[in-house]
């Protein structure tokens, strides 16, 4: 029996032949898909999890990096600076909330000033715009609550929601004809002269090109095609998040001078667009690519180090802790010391492109990495631009950000805008149903949360969780299918009484 075709294929049957299949729905895969959707190509993206951005792209700081913290001459440096020049426009085109905040790298003592000079020199070589070293008054002017003697100021650094950005890229691609399958892992690859035959639980697809953007699993995906060149080591970073009252304390990312040894995590402080502050990430190799546990010692160290930089953080509440995983090419034993981004067409398997080891600054670099993929494909065949390409996406506004007049209009037009679902983040039923009915059909609580912020506030879903369960049921999801983040994380075992 042919497997039931999920989500994006609901409206029309899915063809089985594609020009390009992108494997992996993180920020890199979605940026590649969106860039490819400018051309007259039949496109498909395969994502193994129940939502986009479920891997590396959800567990990072959401910082737009300016490119001073990566070794000169590397692909990391080039794509970072090139990505910086593209990402703000892209975020505007897609209607993704972001802010050019600037950033400070802070030295607490005079003896650390040379490290700032080194970073500045590296940034200048890399082409990072506007870097300058500032003194205590310069720090105060930019971040009054931050303690420090000297700082490197990077005016063009910024913040963005990494998962909203990822989802927006895919929504744009979708609007331009690309297809996306969630919960669809690639399980086997048959290499044929005319292309690749891709086996998945949802059926078999042929692709003339495959672009492997599988993040933590990019080594395993490549190996399915017989490419045994890579090994990814998962590297965990733990974070803590404060309540949103934090906006008054810090509205610009602040990093300490990069640590020289393991005695100091060098925890970063990153504000979010909603006014929380992220502390972290920590750094530790782990065995399991899905081991996103948090640990007591790291939580304690993150706080201790953050309080050194910004003493006022002590009075804030912490509302959430989480961990993300980065795909390291450097190994725990230290045999591989330096590793650059890998973006290459396989020599063994022509028309199979691998993007491997895309860790920080991969979020910022994603638009530039996508352009590299176009260059690789464009070098082999003529790519014709579609005249009808739309660079935007059908965005749903956030009620919390609307002014009074717009709120009056929306509620008058549709009662669902008047029904508050999330009391902490002021999310309405209209936004939740839009997320559930959107092309990717958010089905898990985390997927709804990432699209609407429902459950991200101080009650952490205590009040809106039960309401979401009702709304999902009203949208046709039976209770036993309601999950936190897809299959295996079901919230309920049906009903207590028939």
């Amino acid at each position: 029996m042919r497997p039931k075709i999920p989500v994006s294929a609901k409206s029309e049957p899915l063809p089985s032949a594609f020009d390009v299949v992108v494997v992996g729905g993180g920020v890199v895969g979605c940026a590649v898909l969106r860039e490819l959707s400018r051309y007259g190509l039949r496109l498909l993206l395969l994502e193994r999890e129940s939502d986009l951005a479920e891997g590396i792209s959800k567990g990072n700081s959401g910082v737009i990096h300016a490119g001073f913290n990566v070794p000169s001459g590397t692909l990391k440096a080039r794509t970072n600076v090139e990505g910086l020049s593209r990402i703000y426009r892209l975020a505007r085109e897609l209607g993704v909330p972001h802010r050019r905040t600037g950033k400070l790298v802070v030295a607490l003592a005079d003896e650390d000033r040379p490290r700032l000079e080194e970073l500045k020199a590296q940034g200048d070589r890399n082409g990072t715009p506007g870097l300058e070293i500032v003194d205590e008054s310069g720090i105060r002017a930019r971040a009054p609550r931050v303690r420090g003697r000297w700082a490197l100021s990077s005016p063009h650094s910024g913040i963005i929601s990494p998962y909203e950005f990822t989802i927006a890229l895919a929504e744009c691609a979708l609007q331009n004809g690309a297809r996306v399958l969630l919960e669809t892992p690639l399980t086997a690859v048959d290499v044929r002269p005319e292309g690749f035959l891709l086996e998945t639980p949802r059926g078999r697809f042929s692709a003339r090109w495959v672009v492997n953007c599988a993040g933590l699993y990019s080594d395993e995906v490549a190996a399915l095609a017989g490419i045994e060149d890579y090994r990814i080591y998962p590297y965990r970073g733990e974070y803590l998040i404060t309540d949103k009252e934090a906006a008054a304390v810090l509205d610009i990312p602040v990093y300490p001078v990069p640590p020289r040894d393991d005695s100091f995590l060098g925890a970063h402080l990153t504000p979010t667009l909603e006014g929380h502050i992220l502390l972290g990430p920590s750094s530790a190799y782990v065995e399991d690519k899905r081991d996103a546990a948090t640990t007591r010692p790291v939580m304690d160290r993150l706080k201790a180090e953050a309080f050194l930089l910004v003493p006022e953080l002590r009075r804030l509440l912490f509302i959430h802790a989480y961990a993300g995983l980065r795909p390291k090419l450097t190994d725990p034993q230290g045999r591989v010391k330096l590793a650059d981004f890998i973006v290459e067409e396989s020599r063994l398997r022509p028309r199979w492109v691998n993007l491997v080891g895309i860790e920080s600054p991969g979020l910022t670099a994603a638009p530039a990495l996508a352009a590299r993929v176009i260059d690789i494909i464009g070098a082999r065949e003529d790519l014709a631009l579609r005249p009808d390409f739309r660079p935007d996406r059908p965005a749903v506004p956030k009620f919390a950000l609307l002014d009074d007049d717009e709120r009056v209009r929306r509620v008058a037009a549709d009662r669902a805008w008047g029904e508050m679902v999330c009391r902490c983040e002021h999310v309405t039923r209209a936004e939740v149903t839009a997320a559930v009915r959107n092309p990717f059909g958010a089905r898990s609580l985390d997927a709804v949360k990432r699209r609407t912020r429902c459950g991200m506030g101080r009650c952490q879903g205590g009040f809106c969780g039960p309401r979401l369960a009702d709304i999902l049921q009203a949208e046709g999801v039976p209770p036993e299918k309601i999950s936190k983040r897809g299959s295996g994380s079901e919230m309920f075992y049906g009903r207590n009484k028939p």
Partner: protein
Amino acid sequence: MTAGPETHDVVVIGGGPAGLAAALGARRAGAEDVLILERERELGGILRQCVHDGFGLFLYKESISGPEYAERLAEDAWREGVRTRTGAMVLDLTADRLLRVNSADGYRLIRARAVVLAMGCRERTREMIEIPGTRPAGVLTAGSAQHMVNLQNLRIGHDAVILGSGDIGLIMARRLTFEGMRVRGVFELMPWANGLERNVRQCLRDFDIPLELSSTVVEVRGRDRVSGVVVARVDEALRPIAGTEREVACDTLLLSVGLIPENELSRRAGIELSPLTGGALVDETLMTSVPGIFSCGNVLHIHDIADGASFEGFAAGRRAAEFLARGAGAAESRRVRIAPGENIRYVLPQAAQAGTEGLELNFRVTVPGRGRWVTVRGAASGALYFRKKFARLVPSEMLKIRIKRAVEEDVEVRCHG
């Protein structure tokens, strides 16, 4: 916005046991136009999900369920001319009592001549007590679980561990047992149970559910769904003792680790809050630091019984009506401060007009004790205003005392041997 705001005499924010009583209190004291704004679809607040009995022992002199208690109060409110609007959430409140309210019937501005805050509280989460480990499905606060089980008929798991012996946790231990779940144990950080004694007896002992004191959960395990929790004993400083860890297999972890008055609107209005209660600082009329805005119920301080929240609501509503009758610009009089001293976690109100007679004080002790004195003395003079010996004092029970003589100076409340 084109039209000017609609106006009301008294707007009560929240239609639970405190808010319903506040509206009734305001009506009975003569306020004409009293409106309750309730964000849920029905009145009653958290009472709606409390299907167990034990409510109303003080207000109605009989034991009824939460929904029955809510229904009686709501019927009184309707009968006595209180206007109610449900599904209406207040998103913003200013110091001059302008409210931004969203509901399916429209988004509008409302101007109130007096406001009573009765928004209730929320539960402390896993994150606030910082339990490390994985982030699987199956970790719920006890109140959310109560909503899912009692109002939504959802089966939340098979085997549960409950952290915290707050009343909701105890009630849920019994509830889950009724629904066929196995409750592996209730673990409590403190050396004493946090909930009411009657709940420990009726919800745990009667069902042979183990209660382990001086213990906590130090890790959550399970990648997608909870597979177990690691529990450990704690020392006198409440730190986990290395070597005492053991894993308890379960698929559900319920947290009953405290309630937090939900004062986001109060903050927006610039109301001063107490770090001890998490609620507004109030005077003997339950008025906050912002004139014309009063506070009662769990948004003011966490009550142990609904009746207590209602009694406070009646008082706050009456005072709001009196405030209106008195008119703005009443002369500012000298105020005295009431501070918690030895073994007193907090005392309410925190201030009163100098010379107030019959001042009622609510307080909680920090640690339990037997045969202790509670005294109220002048902070400067040392003069004795009140003294009484209590046979038994526990942090889980709020106590009320009344000072007969006029209080003319700052006073301190102490509990001692």
